[in-house]
Every structure is written in C-alpha cells, then in structure tokens.
C-alpha cells in the first residue's frame, strides 16, 4: 500500500499545485477574475472522473496499478499540453461586447483545462475504488498532498518562472505514475515522456502569450521597446521595459496648461498590465515640473512640509510627487518587495537613489496591515493610481476583491490622519461616472462611521479629462484652503467637481461634459436623499465594505434591460462584462457539469440512483454546495488578512483540504452511529462558523500587522477546527451509502462533484450580492438541511425510493 499512498500524495500535490499555478497563469495571460473558474473546473474534473470510474469499474478493479499509472501519466502530459493548447484559443475578454463567439472560446478554455484535472482526479478515484478498505488513509494522503502542493507552488513561484513551475508539477505527477507503474516497459515509456516534456518541447511553446490587449503586449510593439528583466513571485510577474525611441511619459491627469514634459521612464508591468513607472531623476527632484501639474498634486496645494504616507508606491511616482512638493517625511508602502527592490536597488541609479533619501522609509507591506499597525499622525495619506485606464474602462476587474477602498479601510485611513490631515485618492474618470462616485459614497460613509457629521465641509474633488482626485480632510476646509484649491484647479484647467460652497457654474468649465455628472452625484450623495440616489443610479455605487469588498463591481441587474436595449447603440460598453462573464461561467459549469458527471451515470443506469436514491442524492448535493460556499467565502475573507488572493487561495484551500482530511480519518474511528456523527459534525460547523462571522474581523484587525508566516499559521489555526468538522459528513455519508447500496457510491461522488462545480462559481456571485456573512449563513443552512437527508440506514431503506 505504501506505493499507493506515495503516488496519491504526489498526484494530489501536483493537482492542487496545478490549480493554483493555473490561477497565476490565467491572471498573467488574461485577467484575475478567471481565477475562480479554475476552482470550478478542477472540481468538474473530480466529478467527471467519478462518473468515468463508475462506468469502467470492472476493468479498473482488475487493472488497478495500470489504470492509476496511466491516469497519472496522462495527468502529467495533459497539464503541459492543455497549457499550450489553452494559449492557442483566441479568447479576448474585451471583445465580448461585440463578439458572442468569445463565449464559445471561453467554453473551449474551460474544456481544455478540465482535462488534466480529470486525469488527476481519476488517480485518486481509482485508488479509492480499488483500495476502499484503506479509503480513510488514502483520503488522508490525498489531502496532505493537496496541502503540500499549495505550499510547494507558492515557494516555487519565488524561484521559478510560471512555465518552469508547470514542468516541476508535471515531473511530480509523472513520478507518481512511475511509482505505480509496476512494469519496466511502462516505467521506461513514462520516463521518456517526462524527458520529452522537460527537454523536448520548443521553448516558445511554453512561453506566456499574453492577451494582445494587455499593456505589456501593446508596449512591446513599439519600436525598440525591450524587456530588461522579468521577476516572478506569487504576488505577480514583474516585467521591466525600456523604450528608448518612444519614451513612456506616463503622467495621468497632466494639465493641458503645463509647460513640462515627464522625464525618461522605465515601465514596470505587473502580470503584463497595471503599468507603473520608474522615472529618471538626475539629482534634483525640483526639475520634474510636471509633478506640479497633475490632479494628484491637489492636496499639496493645501499642505506645507507634510508627513506623507503613500499606499501603493509602485515604481515610486507618488513618492517623487511628495518630494517635489517638499514633504518632510514619506512612508512608501508597496505590497510587492520585488517592486521596491527595483526602485531601491536594481534601478536605483536610474531613479536617482530615490529610496536612499533620508526622508523616505520604504515598506514591503500590504496597505491595510500597515495602516492598522501604524501610529498614524500623517498629514497626507495618498493612494496612487495603479490600475491601467484601459482595464478600468473595460470592466474586467468587476469581481476583483479590493480591500483598499472599503468603508472600513477608509475609516482606518481617516483615523490615522493628523489634525487637519488629508486623505487623497486619484482614480481614472469614466463617464458617466461610476467608480469615482462610488469612491465618494464610500468616503462619505467612512466619515459618518467615524463620527463625522459634516462631511460636506471636509470634501473636495477635482477632475481633468481622464482623472479625478478626491481629498477628504480631517477637519473643515477653511475659506482660505478652498480659495487655494480653486486657484490650483483654475490655473491648470482642472474642473472642480465639489468643494464646500461650490455652485453649479463652477463644475463644468474647462473639461466640458454633457452634464456635470460628478458634481451632481457628489452633491446628491451628501444630501438628505443620498440613499434614494444610490438606489436609483444606473450603476451600483453602494459603498464597498469588508464583507462585500467589490469596489469595482458597478453592475446593476436593474439597468441591464435598458443597457441591452441600447446595446448596439453603444451602451453595451457601459455594462460591466466581468460580472456577466461570471454568470456565463456559472451557467456553463452547470451545463457541462451535468453533461459530464450526471448524464453518463443516468445513461448507464436507466433506473436512476437506486436504494438510497433521492435522499442520499440530496444529502451529497447539499454537502457539495455548502462545503464550497464556506471555502470560497473564506478565500475571499482571508484575502484581506493574507494580503493577496493567491496566498489566500493557497492557504485556505490547503487548510480546508488537510484539516477536512484529518476530520475524515478521525471520523472513521468514531464509535457513534454515522447519522449521529454527521449531526454532531454539523453542530460543530454551525457553532464555529457563527463564531467566526462575529470574531474574524476583530482577529484580523488584531493580527494584521504580523509577519506573513505568522499570519499563515494563524489562518491555518483558524481554519483547522471548522475544516475538521466539515470533513466529517461526506465520508460518513459515503460509508453509510456503501453499507446500504454500494452501487450508489459513484452517484454520491458524482452528485457531490456536480454541486461543488456549481458552487465554486455560484459562491462568487453570491458573495457579490450577499457578502461573506450571507454566503456562510447560507452554507450553514444547507448543512443543517443536509442532516435531514443522511443516506438512509437499512431499516428505512424501502421507504426512500
């Protein structure tokens, strides 16, 4: 059995590693919001393999080792092959507005990446089927492998490029295959296949083919543009690009009236997009005159020698902005340490040794965590503009969690300001205004939450043709300050969208829009009928919160009919397609899941699931939904604590799998009846989850400033008890089903797998609508409901079907 355990461990490790790596790869070549599709299709692989095994059970039982070895070999080969094939599909998320074929391409990607998961899951399923007496231990090794895989891939991404990490995982899977081959000729073939993967593939087949419309792809088309360096980490793939012939000149919101041109710059792309720049500084920052003529310079017109906190320092542009305006001290916070190293070490000379300036302190830290542990007293907290205009405009970010712009976050920032200090946030301006209004709504909410009852006296917003800068003061804006900011805007042909005492005539003078929407919106948000305004507005501008951290989610179902009826007239471009793509993936998951998991079972067994029947089916369906609801909600919630979605996915996924695995092993030894065991487990799940809904925000707040390894350990400790109990109901149900009706076992797997596939994508949609607590509460209801459908023991069998 040792060989089986070892091979299971290796395959499982490679499978979860592949799942996480695929999220990275798709974030790089496409955009982040496809990440959750990966979880759904991994689960589809597991569900469909259950069905395939059920249908070929006799052959598999007779050829256990061969079947396992073949599946593992195919897993290894297909994970590389599907990556290559997936990149050939001409999917372009941005074109969805015009081209319905893109949905077919999306489905093609879904099916291509499903294949390796199918084979990985087949290995585990085969082991379960053929060695069912050891199922608890197989489950244990399966889940331990999964936990190890998540950690392995995170570590590997620090030292290897993503395509090489892929080869590492393929090697691991093939090693599992070789362990199980049992025949020399098979081992020889497997070794040759592995060698072929490692050294036989043309290098460019494994190259990352970014969407042609990501910033990096576009930049690389420019004459003489070349990538100087590429750095990999789980936090993102950084590409440094120089363009000597056609300089970058990145200066969002630069005034038309300026006399200055930005200096030479190097661009740094994160995952092929989100361009940040490192500007050449030759000694004197004062030469960078253009920095005085951008909208983001507004707060400096009101401050003298401020102590500044820059959140999201990127390539250092906003740090330069602070120094240019005579900041006395700048704390520059950037999540990605490699980005800081670029400015501070690698290109330090180019950047004029910017980070050596004694006034500057650089921190590699997540913004919220830094602010939480900071003593505060800042005269200015500045949040830079790090996403690209094209991406902001396309709505593809709609479902990205962002804990930077929630009510709780902004309350924290406001709380760290000195008396008279200013919070300043610059955003790209999209018309009609959406995120800029949502930001205003969020800031106003945060002020009110912090006990401020006169936000209308503390707020000012200006706009250029493509950016808006909002400032919120810790105190009332004085008449003199208002005069200064109006003068700042006038001199640079920026329009004022709001300041205390603004008149309609002040709001639309230089950059004339059909109506002064931003001004009217902010006035409405500050007024008595703000709630009505938000409800009636065509975009979703309710403030984002830590429970629903979807700042970029602006889609409203209520507006869809009108937008679609205007679709061919251009309004389709105003729809947040990220949201509708997610809806499409849920529908797609349901259809493909049904076709690949349930339909084959139905075909093979025309009488349908027998004996434990509908009762057992409902039990496993509800468990599948509930488990993934909790898991997905926790991934979303822990993104705040662990600073990055990928860390959260890896830690939460592996935590749930490992501790649920331990739960399953332990439950196998319980002496209580299975029904009772399942009931107790659900009581445990409900109690712990309810407790977490209450205490997690406080726990996160308290430990936010801890170093990453400690936070990961803390996260695992939090997940452990909940996951332990969540691991119990499924194997107990399976055991009961096996005792009652062995032929129902594949159905149990299939139905549970189908529910999981559905749940993984549905959970994100529900999180957008209901928030973290809502999704978890719904999952608890499902768990409680499931206990009523525990697979019937023998005495009640006849009454079930």
């Amino acid at each position: 059995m040792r060989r089986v355990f070892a091979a299971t461990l290796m395959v499982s490790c490679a499978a979860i590693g592949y799942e996480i790596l695929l999220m990275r790869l798709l974030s790089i070549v496409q955009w982040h919001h496809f990440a959750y599709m990966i979880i759904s299709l991994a689960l589809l692989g597991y569900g469909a393999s259950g069905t395939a095994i059920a249908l070929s059970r006799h052959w598999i039982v007779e050829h256990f080792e061969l079947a396992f070895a073949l599946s593992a070999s195919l897993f290894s080969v297909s994970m590389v092959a599907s990556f290559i094939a997936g990149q050939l599909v001409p999917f372009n998320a941005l074109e969805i507005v015009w081209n319905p074929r893109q949905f077919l391409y999306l489905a093609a990607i879904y099916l291509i990446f499903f294949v390796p998961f199918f084979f990985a899951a087949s290995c585990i399923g085969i082991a379960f089927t053929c060695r069912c007496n050891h199922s608890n231990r197989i489950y244990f090794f399966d889940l331990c492998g999964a936990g190890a895989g998540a950690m392995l891939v995170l570590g590997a991404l620090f030292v290897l490029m993503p395509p090489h990490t892929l080869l590492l995982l393929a090697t691991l899977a093939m090693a599992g295959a070789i362990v199980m081959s049992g025949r020399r000729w098979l081992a020889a073939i497997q070794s040759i296949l592995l060698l072929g993967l490692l050294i036989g593939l043309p290098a460019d087949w494994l190259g990352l083919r970014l969407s042609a419309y990501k910033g990096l792809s576009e930049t690389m088309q420019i004459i003489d543009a070349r990538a100087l360096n590429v750095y990999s980490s789980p936090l993102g793939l950084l590409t440094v690009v120089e363009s000597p012939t056609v300089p970058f000149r990145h200066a969002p919101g630069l005034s038309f009236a300026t006399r200055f041109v930005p200096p030479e710059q190097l661009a740094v792309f994160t995952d092929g997009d989100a361009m940040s720049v490192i500007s050449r500084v030759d000694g004197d920052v004062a030469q960078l005159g253009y920095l005085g003529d951008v909208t983001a310079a507004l707060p400096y017109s009101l401050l003298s020698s401020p102590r500044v906190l820059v959140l999201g320092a990127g390539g250092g542009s906003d740090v330069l902005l602070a120094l240019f305006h005579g900041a006395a001290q700048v704390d520059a916070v950037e999540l990605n340490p490699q980005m800081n190293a670029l400015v501070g070490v690698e290109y330090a000379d180019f950047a004029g040794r910017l980070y050596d300036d004694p006034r500057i302190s650089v921190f590699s830290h997540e913004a919220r965590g830094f602010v939480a542990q900071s003593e505060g007293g800042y005269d200015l907290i500045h949040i830079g503009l790090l996403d690209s205009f094209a991406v902001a405009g396309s709505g593809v970010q709609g479902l990205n969690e962002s804990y930077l712009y929630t009510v709780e976050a902004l309350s924290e920032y406001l709380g760290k300001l000195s008396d008279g200090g200013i919070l300043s946030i610059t955003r790209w301006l999209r018309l009609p205004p959406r995120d800029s209004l949502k930001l205003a709504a969020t800031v106003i909410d945060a002020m009110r939450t912090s006990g401020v009852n006169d936000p209308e006296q503390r707020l000012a917003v200006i706009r250029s043709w493509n950016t808006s800068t909002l400032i919120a003061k810790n105190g009332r804006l004085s008449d003199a300050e208002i005069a200064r900011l109006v003068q700042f805007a006038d001199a640079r042909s920026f329009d004022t969208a709001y300041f205390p005492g603004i008149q309609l005539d002040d709001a639309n003078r230089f950059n004339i829009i059909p109506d002064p929407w931003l001004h009217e919106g902010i006035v409405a948000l500050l007024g008595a009928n703000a709630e009505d305004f938000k409800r009636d507005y065509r975009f979703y501008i309710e403030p984002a919160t830590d429970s629903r951290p979807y700042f970029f989610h602006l889609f409203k179902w209520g507006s869809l009919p009108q937008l679609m009826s205007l679709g061919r007239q251009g309004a389709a471009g105003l729809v947040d397609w990220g949201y509708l793509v997610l809806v499409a993936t849920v529908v797609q998951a349901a259809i493909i899941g049904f076709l690949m998991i349930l339909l084959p079972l139905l075909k093979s067994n025309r009488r349908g699931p027998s004996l434990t029947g509908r009762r057992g089916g409902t039990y496993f369906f509800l468990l599948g939904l509930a488990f993934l609801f909790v898991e997905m909600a926790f991934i979303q919630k822990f993104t705040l604590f662990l600073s990055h979605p990928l860390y959260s996915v890896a830690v939460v996924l592996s935590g749930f799998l490992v501790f649920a695995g331990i739960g399953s092993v332990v439950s196998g030894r319980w002496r209580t009846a299975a029904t009772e065991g399942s009931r107790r487990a659900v009581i445990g799940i409900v109690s712990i989850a309810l407790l977490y809904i209450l205490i997690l925000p406080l726990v996160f707040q308290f430990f936010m400033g801890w170093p990453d390894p400690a936070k990961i350990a803390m996260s695992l400790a939090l997940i452990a008890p909940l996951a332990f109990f969540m691991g119990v109901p499924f194997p107990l149900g399976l055991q009961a089903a096996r005792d009652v009706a062995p032929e129902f076992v594949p159905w149990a797997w299939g139905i549970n797998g189908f529910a999981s596939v559905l749940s993984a994508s549905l959970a994100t949609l529900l999180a957008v609508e209901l928030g973290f607590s809502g999704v978890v509460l719904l999952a608890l209801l499902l768990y409680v409901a499931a206990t009523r459908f525990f697979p019937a023991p023998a005495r009640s069998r006849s009454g079930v079907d």
Partner: protein
Amino acid sequence: MLVLPLLLVAAPVLPQDHAAERAAMVEEVKRYATRARDKDTKFDGRVLDALDAVERHRFVPANQVAFAYENRPLPIGHSQTISQPYIVALMTDLIRPTPDDVVLEIGTGSGYQAAILASVVEHVYSIEIIEALADAASARLRRLGYTNVTTRLGDGYYGWQEQGPYDAIVVTAAASHVPPPLIAQLKPGGRMVIPVGGRFATQQLLLIEKTPDDGIVTRQIAAVRFVPLTGRH
C-alpha cells in the same frame, strides 16, 4: 446547362467591392448616431460620402473581411484595432473638415481613418509608432490611390512640427495625458479629437478646441446618450 456550374465556380473569385454592404453600413452609422447622441444628429454629407466610398474591407486582415462592414471595432493584429465606423465618422465630423484643411493624424493603424480624412480635406499627415503597421498602411494607401496622405514611422508625441500648424489633429489612441507638443501644433481655432476608453469598448471622444487667444477648452462627447441621474428603473 454548363453555364450555371461555371458561374457557381467563378462567383467566389470575382472581385467584390461590397458596395451594398458599405451603403448598409452608412445607414447603420446614421441610425446609430441619432440613437446614440441625439435624434437630430446629422453627420456632414461629405463625411458620409467618404464612409460610403472608402473600402473598409481593404483595411482589415483577411480573416476579418466578413465583418468589415459591421459597425464595430475589429482586431488588425499587432495589438491594434480598426475603430468602429461610427467613431471614425464622429471623429471626422467633429473636426468640421473643410477641403482646404491640413490634418495631422497620430496613429495610422490600418490607414482607414487617414483614407476617410483624405477624402474630405486637402492633405493628411499621419504618424504610426508600430513599424509593421506603418509599412503596411503606407503601402495600402499608396496602392489604393490616396495621394494626399503622407505617412511616416515615428513617435506621435511630438507631432510633425515641420508640416504644422494644423487645422485639426486626430489622435487615435489615448495616452495618460494629451501631449503638450500636439496642442502647440494646433492652429488657433483648430480642433483635436481623441477617443477615450478601451480599444474594444464603446469609446467616448474628447474634443479639444484651441480658442483664438490660444486658450484650451475640452469637451467630452459621450458616445452614448445615456442619462444616468434621472428616473427610476
């Protein structure tokens, strides 16, 4: 009886000028303009004539020819697109072209916008930053007989000072800011248009007008008549 099969065989290789599709596209652009902007919106007749005359299918890659007369942007390779015909018409209309005008275009792309402009003004100067596109567009415009278009490979940020100042400037790719040198090369009373938004999104246009006293006023021309602040759903 032999004639019919021969015709059937010959038909696909006959040159197609797509005149009917083009006329339909012009009608669609006119309809689109009245619905998207204002029911009274009418493009200059010369702009519509140009749209009807310029063969858009000659400006798109072979695999996009079937969609050439749909009112939408299309990929043309090298991370670029050919703009939506409505946007091309709107941009051309917004600069109020006259036959004597000299116009600068930043971003030749496929050359389609330059061809439309060339049909309504005296001369078009066009700069493209991507070498492959610049070469292809230059050859294409020459082949199609647009003798009043001069193209060159280069960085559009500094404009084309030797040929300026210009009556109008058309920028077909939005940067993080509007290049100050371009504003400098605009004649007093001149107009500059820049599309704003993602390449595949419905774009809005920024119209920059230089007043006779060298002041600058910009107008954001919403591509869609969408009133977000009134009424309920």
